[in-house]
């Protein structure tokens, strides 16, 4: 069976994405799972130090955000994201990276409209939609006397 390069490319396209997807999913599962396990470790340490559940949750967020921000500054986070894909993106580490990466990149455009503004390129929409939906939820709770 002989194939023209064009046919080969089509066949390649047809069969390779699924195996790539499997590999991506496995890596996302692994990296995302490990980040959450690290979060759980910080949570357990915090509660053993006497922090409440809510306080421990805050400690987990702050720690993971700091670690991800530092790794972004050190150029390490990009490599983790290349391997882990959504596994690095979906945990709160991805939120932290989405703030630091553009802030660093656009620092050359100034500290106000470069660093200060561009840090919200992705985090901004996340906050806008998250907060808006939560306010709508609060209004619904109030109007319908659910609480």
């Amino acid at each position, binding site marked *: 069976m002989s194939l023209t390069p064009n046919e080969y490319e089509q066949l390649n396209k047809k069969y390779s994405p699924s195996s790539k997807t499997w590999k991506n999913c496995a890596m996302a599962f692994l990296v995302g799972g490990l980040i959450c396990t690290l*979060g759980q470790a910080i949570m357990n340490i915090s509660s053993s130090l006497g922090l409440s559940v809510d306080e421990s949750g805050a400690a987990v967020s702050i720690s993971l955000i700091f670690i991800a921000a530092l790794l972004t500054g050190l150029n390490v986070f990009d490599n983790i994201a290349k391997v882990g894909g959504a596994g690095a993106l979906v945990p709160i580490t991805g939120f932290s990276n989405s703030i630091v990466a553009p802030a660093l990149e656009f620092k050359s455009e100034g500290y106000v409209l470069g660093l200060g503004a561009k840090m919200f390129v992705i985090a901004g929409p996340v906050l806008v939609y998250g907060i808006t939906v*939560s306010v709508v939820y609060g209004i619904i709770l109030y109007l319908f006397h659910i609480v």
Partner: protein
Amino acid sequence: MDYIKAFVIGGLFCVVAQILIDKTKLTPARILVSYVVAGVILGAIGVYQPLVDFAGAGATVPLTGFGNLLAKGVHKAVTEQGLLGAVTGGITAAAAGITAAIFFGFLIALIFKPKEKS
């Protein structure tokens, strides 16, 4: 045991996002927005908290957990303060994460040099 639960549930949240990225045209930014909004909605209808109770950090660390935190804060604040709580509750509950991200983000961006363009 709580480590295994956190690993599996947290991993599954990431797999769902990976499938969405690979199979649809959703960009990572849209995934993040969708996850937070989904977290608010799942928290509002009361299905997310049981998952948090089960999986701990496996449910709070993914961005859906951030959305759930917003919903939880709003619920608590509306209970205590009425309508004002709809406005104050979300960010109050999520204050640690948001402020840490802004503060550390600023600090790191200030100290480190941007990556060399290749």
